[in-house]
């Protein structure tokens, strides 16, 4: 009986003009989108290779002092993710490179994507097509599935038979979904075929698994939208009413909730901007540097009885030993103080930012669209997990360079009680630039992606269960009048 209803639903859906529209849209847009994005990825990969090569050349021909002084900054470039072909995600908004200097790292330029319109509205990638086009079509299909038959009167004919209502609903849901999923699957297969004729790195470790996960998650997301449509359909008696409701719900879930998340988070928990935090850190460091300079200058004057620093190549006397011992102690003490202050400012900012992001993410996850977006972009290594990995890599590389390169020279400004200033410069050892590690960003593993997206997975699961449960309840108690 279930199979009979299911087959009927598939047959009726296939004869619907919306099926033809879906098939044409899917089979044309998905392969074209994938092809265009693959071309763009290949271009970015070529640019990345060139930049890395040129940077290596520039560094190898530079003087150590140029690197230490920051005249020639060491740059770490972000390698384009192959799966950005499916979902551009944050790839276009992340800095293309970071420049590493003794005083810290600096963001490089953002890669130029499409024109202003495309950057505002999102790229026409696989994610966009599923998130906006297929979701809307699935909702519209679902919205018609029960209310259409209620309005037409065929549901009375069906329910006058000895058929359990849950079987009718299940048959219609499975059959209707199959009619959407088939053209979608066909479109994805066509897209894969198109990609197989390009240089897309299918052979790379884990790529196929991730593509499969993208496909399965997209299928689930389409099902969620279809079930929301059915839920609306079960609660309304007319197709027109359910279509209006569907448009309202789609706008709310796709466009409003994801944007409102950020707005509410900013209003509920405002935080300082990164620039303000950076200024705060600079001010704290400057204050400590100035204090350190004064302490060193005072001690120098007390030991040597003068306020002029002269480099001495003579054997160290008792005064030199006393000075060096004091200087070493003071430098370490202020280094610790600076580190403490910077960490304290950073930790407080991270805490505040964490709370704001958590509020934003919690609100956004109310929408299945956001949950889907987070999950897909992380599968494709173009999401927040990738952004975190990139920043982690930047922090780690800066630290590594600090230990292995920048700390090899020490410059300290000192201020004498008389007001005169001087500088202490000391080299610790000769550097071999070739021994410096290359900058690289680790991709988030699938396990990390799943752990990071537990909220998204829960949200999608709930969106899968709740609409069907509501539809089921509505349909069972539905008065066939």
């Amino acid at each position, binding site marked *: 009986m279930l199979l*009979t209803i299911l087959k009927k639903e598939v047959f009726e859906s296939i004869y619907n003009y919306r099926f033809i529209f879906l098939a044409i849209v899917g089979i044309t847009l998905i392969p074209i989108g994938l092809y265009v994005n693959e071309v763009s990825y290949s271009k970015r990969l070529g640019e990345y290779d060139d930049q890395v090569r040129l940077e290596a050349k520039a560094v190898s021909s530079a003087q150590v002092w140029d690197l230490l002084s920051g005249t020639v900054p060491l740059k770490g470039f972000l390698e384009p993710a192959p799966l950005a072909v499916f979902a551009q995600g944050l790839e276009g908004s992340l800095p293309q490179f970071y420049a590493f200097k003794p005083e810290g790292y600096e963001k490089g330029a953002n890669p130029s994507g499409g024109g202003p319109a495309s950057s505002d509205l999102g790229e026409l990638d696989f994610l966009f097509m599923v998130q906006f086009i297929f979701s809307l079509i699935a909702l519209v299909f679902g919205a018609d599935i029960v209310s259409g038959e209620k309005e037409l009167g065929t549901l009375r004919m069906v329910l006058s038979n*000895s*058929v359990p209502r849950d079987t009718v609903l299940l048959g219609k849901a499975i059959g209707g979904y199959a009619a959407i999923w088939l053209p979608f699957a066909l479109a994805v297969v066509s897209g894969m075929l198109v990609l197989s004729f390009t240089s897309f790195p299918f052979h790379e470790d884990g790529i196929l698994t991730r593509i499969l996960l993208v496909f399965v998650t997209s299928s689930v997301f389409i099902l969620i939208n279809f079930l929301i449509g059915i839920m609306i359909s079960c609660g309304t008696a007319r197709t027109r009413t359910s279509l209006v409701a569907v448009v309202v719900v789609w706008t709310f879930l796709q466009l409003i909730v994801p944007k409102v998340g950020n707005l509410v988070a900013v209003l509920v928990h405002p935080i300082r901007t990164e620039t303000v935090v950076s200024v705060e850190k600079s001010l704290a460091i400057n204050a400590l540097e100035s204090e350190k300079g004064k302490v060193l200058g005072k001690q120098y004057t007390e030991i040597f009885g003068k306020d002029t620093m002269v480099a001495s190549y003579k054997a160290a006397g008792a005064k030199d030993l006393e000075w060096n011992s004091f200087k070493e102690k003071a430098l370490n003490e202020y280094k610790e103080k600076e580190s403490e202050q910077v960490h304290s400012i950073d930790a407080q900012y991270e805490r505040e930012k964490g709370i704001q992001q958590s509020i934003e993410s919690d609100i956004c996850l109310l929408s299945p669209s956001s949950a889907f977006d987070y999950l897909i972009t992380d599968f494709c290594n173009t999401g927040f997990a990738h952004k975190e990995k990139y920043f982690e890599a930047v922090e780690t590389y800066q630290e590594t360079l600090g230990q292995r390169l920048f700390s090899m020279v020490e410059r300290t400004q000192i201020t004498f009680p008389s007001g005169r200033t001087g500088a202490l410069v000391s080299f610790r050892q000769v550097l071999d630039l070739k021994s410096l590690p290359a900058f690289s960003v680790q991709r988030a593993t699938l396990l990390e992606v799943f752990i990071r997206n537990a909220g998204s997975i829960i949200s999608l699961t709930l969106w899968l269960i709740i609409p069907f449960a509501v539809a089921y309840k509505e349909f069972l108690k539905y008065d066939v009048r």
Partner: protein
Amino acid sequence: MTFDKLRVIKEVEEQPSAFWPDGAQNQTMIQAVDLTKRYEDGILALDHLNLEIKRGQIYCLLGANGAGKTTAVNLFLNFIEPTSGSAMINGYDCTKEPLEAKKYVAYVPESVMLYGNSSARQNLDFFARLTGKKSLKREDYHMVMRQVGLPEWSFEKQVKTYSKGMRQKLGIAIAILKEAPALVLDEPTSGLDPKAASDFIELLFRLKSEAKTILMSTHDIFRAKEIADTVGIMKEGVLISEKTKEDIECDDLEKWYLKLMQVDRAMV
């Protein structure tokens, strides 16, 4: 099941069968006991309806719009739940055992609506499968369609090209194919032209001759007089009067109906 079996319904009906477990000739097929329906908005659509239709009888429910005829039909098909009382088909409570009760009843609505993109045969096949008949052949469907008077050329045509009369006939074909011993018809001749209505009544006579029990709600006094064994008049949710075939033949049904419609419900 093949159509040969469908064709021998009459013979089957005359013998104890699955539908007639006790083989009783005067078995009550359709029954309402104090059947009441009050909708959420407070409207009392049906007020303690009591009726009993024996096997092979045709019962016509007459009444103006809003009298409660369709509500009664909806209750027998478990489309809605009663506020109190019970509706029964072949002894099965339509609310407590709806799936069991619906095995014994076929339904033809005021306007038979089917899947327009499918052909008449495909629609028949779908509804036959819903009743568990999976092995009927193309010719079996064609035979039922011939039986209800559908023209040959229309058998494989999409139903969206059908006129209302043709759809009503197809609705009857679906009901026949179900082989249910009872039929519930909700104003089936409404909107049909005189020829189509006459054909339809002829079909009902044929079904009656096959010992089918029929409950038909209608506005059409003359058709009711023509075919009914019992006529019930409904007004404001109450069955205010019942007349048997003998009473109808003696009295002027129209006058009686109009008189009942004019008097206050409390006086009846």
